[in-house]
């Protein structure tokens, strides 16, 4: 009898242990299992939009959180044959620069527009690192609507962070370069190369401007890495991390890592505005592209910026100060109150928090440790708030709005949760592998939504089924609603995510446009009714004004095209129903398909090279008769006299 009791007890406690294991991680998240916390049932929406940069893909992924489902990949700096971005005539100007048309870019840091330091969800901005540019994506249509080139910069890495009322979006250079550019020996870097920092004005309509209301600051030739704005009490200031204050120009991995401390540059942009008003700037001549997409004409146009106002901090006291920070800092993050500026020295074993209040006091009491190129360097101890001695290789810090900070450690491959003010470590969790960026929705604003933390890892290795030598990067989602972080999801990402932005879906989803109104279509080559479709020859140029509606093209038979012509197909989608796009592809055409949304017009150019009859068809499965949505173009020899003729059902289209 006694034996039986003992066995029962052992069995019961085993059962309890197993149950406890299955339920591990419960406690936070309302006692739900890990699966329940990450699972979004079929037909239900995610709670957050995640906007993850595509890095070397040049694009921006829209991911649902917590599910990790890919909702859309928005082309920004790289041509996209799926959406004809950068291939159709309307969006080619988006990729124009002072170096000409560039089909690719390296997109890094998304940042969502803010009002009063809180996310407002109007636009998301993202920088291009290689050929310095900033793009603006309109979150009512989830399309890139503006790209501005940044002159006097190279490697636009410390960008595109926004001030707390979206007054400015910033850009700073990762490379010191001769400024303005000129032919000179590279080994004369020291003192001669500069690091121009730009403040691009953002208008009420989101439009960026560098020429009239924006300005540039001629900073010393350090490498500027990351940035974040002051907020609340520190609004009016902007903080940039620098490395390579050694001013090395070769073998940087050694030569930029010798000094004990680099700097965080604190720029007082309100002061800059005063200096601009007082006329204390130089006007530099330059040339940069400014590409704007018009939602009503469905077309982008390029205009050219010719001038920029430049401020010289060595001559303008109070404009810039340097805060020392240990060992090649990467992330530069400001807590929700605006008091702490956290720099992460990536070759160190600690993250460093400086105090904004102490910084002001140190400036007032002139606690300087010398200067760099006329810019005062503040005393390290005088501005230091605390050091968080944690793991190896800190990169980035995000905040949950509950007084905690979360820092990624690349080398030790973990996330460390710590307390602002006491600097004590609360929790640490491994990531798989080598986490770079972190993101909490709103985690770098006055009002974070501290429910989830997304870790974006640089190394994927064995996390997913192997796909040859090249594998996608991995992201891991943590539930941070409890004391301890719990990993609840794990998914591959597109390209290489360098930072992300997140926002509650409720702030965006109801403003999402479903169709473009046909009546508002101001495209110069739009046709709005089948009777208006036509084919017009102008010398060797032929313009086809074509309509699309389930499930045919109007017209669908075209004759009179000749070898040597330049044929413009202007396709208007007559549909006015949600989710009924039509596609267009022409056999042998050296371009991408078109994917035309309801009410929109897009244009594709074709250079017919051989006589014959060449088919075109709809590439987007639009209805049960999609496969029937097709047509023919008859191409005759260069000298032939076949007249222009266009029909539908063998009738002229205007008879329909």
């Amino acid at each position, binding site marked *: 009898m006694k034996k039986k009791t003992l066995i029962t007890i052992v069995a019961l406690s085993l059962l309890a242990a197993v149950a406890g294991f299955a339920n591990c991680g419960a406690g936070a998240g309302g006692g739900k299992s890990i699966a329940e916390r990450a699972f979004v049932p079929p037909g239900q929406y995610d709670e957050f939009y995640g906007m993850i940069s595509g890095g070397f893909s040049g694009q921006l992924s829209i991911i649902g959180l917590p599910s990790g489902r890919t909702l859309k990949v928005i082309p920004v700096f790289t041509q996209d044959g799926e959406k004809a971005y950068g291939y159709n005539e309307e969006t080619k100007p988006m990729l124009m620069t002072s170096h000409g048309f560039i089909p690719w870019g390296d997109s890094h840091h998304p940042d969502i527009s803010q009002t009063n330091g809180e996310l407002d969800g109007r636009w998301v901005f993202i920088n291009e690192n290689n050929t310095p540019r900033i793009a603006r994506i309109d979150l009512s249509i989830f399309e890139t609507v503006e790209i501005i080139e940044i002159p006097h910069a190279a490697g636009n890495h410390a960008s595109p962070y926004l001030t707390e009322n979206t007054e400015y979006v910033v850009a700073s250079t990762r490379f010191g370069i001769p400024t303005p550019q000129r032919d000179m020996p590279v080994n004369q870097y020291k003192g001669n190369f500069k690091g121009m920092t730009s403040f691009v004005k953002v208008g009420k309509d989101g439009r960026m401007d560098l020429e009239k209301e924006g300005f540039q600051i001629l900073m010393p030739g350090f490498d500027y890495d990351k940035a974040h704005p002051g907020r609340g009490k520190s609004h009016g200031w902007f903080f940039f991390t620098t490395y390579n204050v050694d001013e090395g120009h070769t073998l940087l991995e050694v030569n930029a890592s010798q000094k004990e401390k680099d700097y965080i540059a604190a720029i007082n942009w309100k002061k800059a505005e005063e200096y601009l008003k007082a006329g204390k700037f130089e006007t530099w001549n330059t040339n940069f592209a400014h590409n704007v997409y018009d939602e009503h004409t469905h077309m982008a146009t390029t205009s050219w910026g010719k001038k920029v106002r430049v401020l010289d901090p060595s001559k303008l006291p109070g404009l810039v100060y340097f805060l020392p920070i240990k060992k090649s800092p990467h992330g530069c993050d400001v807590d929700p109150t605006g008091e702490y500026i956290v720099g992460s020295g990536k070759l160190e074993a600690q993250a460093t928090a400086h105090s904004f209040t102490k910084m002001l006091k140190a400036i007032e009491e002139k606690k300087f440790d010398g200067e760099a190129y006329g810019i005062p360097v503040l005393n390290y101890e005088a501005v230091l708030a605390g050091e968080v001695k944690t793991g190896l290789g800190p990169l980035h810090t995000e905040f949950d709005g509950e007084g905690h900070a979360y820092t990624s450690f690349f080398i030790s491959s973990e996330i460390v949760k710590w307390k602002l003010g006491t600097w004590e470590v609360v929790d640490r969790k491994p990531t798989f592998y080598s986490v770079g960026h972190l993101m909490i929705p709103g985690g770098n604003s006055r009002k974070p939504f501290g429910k989830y933390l997304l870790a974006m890892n640089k190394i994927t290795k064995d996390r997913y089924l192997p796909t040859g030598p090249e594998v996608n990067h991995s992201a891991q989602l943590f539930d941070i609603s409890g004391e301890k972080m719990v990993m609840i999801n794990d998914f591959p990402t597109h390209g290489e995510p360098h930072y992300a932005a997140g926002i509650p879906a409720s702030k965006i989803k109801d403003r999402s446009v479903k*169709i473009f*109104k046909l009546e508002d279509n101001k495209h110069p080559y739009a046709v709005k009714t089948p009777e208006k479709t036509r084919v017009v020859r102008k010398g060797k140029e032929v313009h086809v004004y074509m309509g699309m509606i389930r499930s045919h093209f109007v017209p669908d038979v075209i004759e009179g095209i000749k070898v040597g012509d330049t044929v413009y197909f202007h396709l208007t989608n007559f549909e*006015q*129903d949600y989710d009924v796009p039509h596609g267009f592809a022409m056999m042998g055409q050296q371009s991408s398909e078109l994917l035309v949304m309801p009410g929109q017009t897009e244009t594709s150019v074709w250079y017919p090279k051989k006589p014959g009859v060449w088919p075109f068809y709809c590439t987007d499965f639009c209805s*049960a*008769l999609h496969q029937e949505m097709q047509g023919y173009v008859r191409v005759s020899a260069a000298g032939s006299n076949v007249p222009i003729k266009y029909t539908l059902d063998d009738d002229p289209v205007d008879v329909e």
Partner: protein
Amino acid sequence: MLNSVKTILSNILQKLIGNDRMYSRVFMIAGGFLLLTTLWLPLWNIQLEAPQYPHPLGMNIYLDKIMDQGEDTHDIKNINILNHYVGMKEIPEHMAEFEIFPYVIMIMGAISILFGIIGNDKLYLLWFLIMAVLGSIGLYDFYKWEYDYGHDLDPNAILKFKDENGNPMGFQPPVIGSKTILNFVAHSYPHIGSFVIFISMGLGLLAFYIRYAANKIKKA
């Protein structure tokens, strides 16, 4: 509960009968004006629901036009696109009814007001009966239009369906109620304008009734 409601209603009725001349006139005149508001109100709504249309397509039928049920939803255009597959005609923008119906309502509204001013209970009943006849004609006309809309199909239609008897399938929505048509469920129900007409007619009948009841009491 039911009893107390009954008591309240009968009390109200007693009050109305107590001042039958005044109230009956008020009802006729108010009913006339009420009827005129239907010039701007939708009378009927037809909706089409399908898995691909989580927000159903729908149209509102007015005295003088057919409109999308939502703002900027392009329902009619989208219904026409769908219907072209089975060879149905487009939803008309012009119909003879659209020219006639508004005048019928204007005249009947004016007559109701006029009868209220005259104050003759037999005229009240007459007005109600004419309204009932006109309403029936209107509904029959609606049915006929729906029948034609659902059965007069293009012989070159892309999709041709046959019913179980081998006859060409019709796509007529119900006059009132819900019905499955291929992948759609069609819902057809009165909209606010119809209810206003019913209330207006009810006021006419009530005007007659309280006069009738009062006269009966006086005779007794």
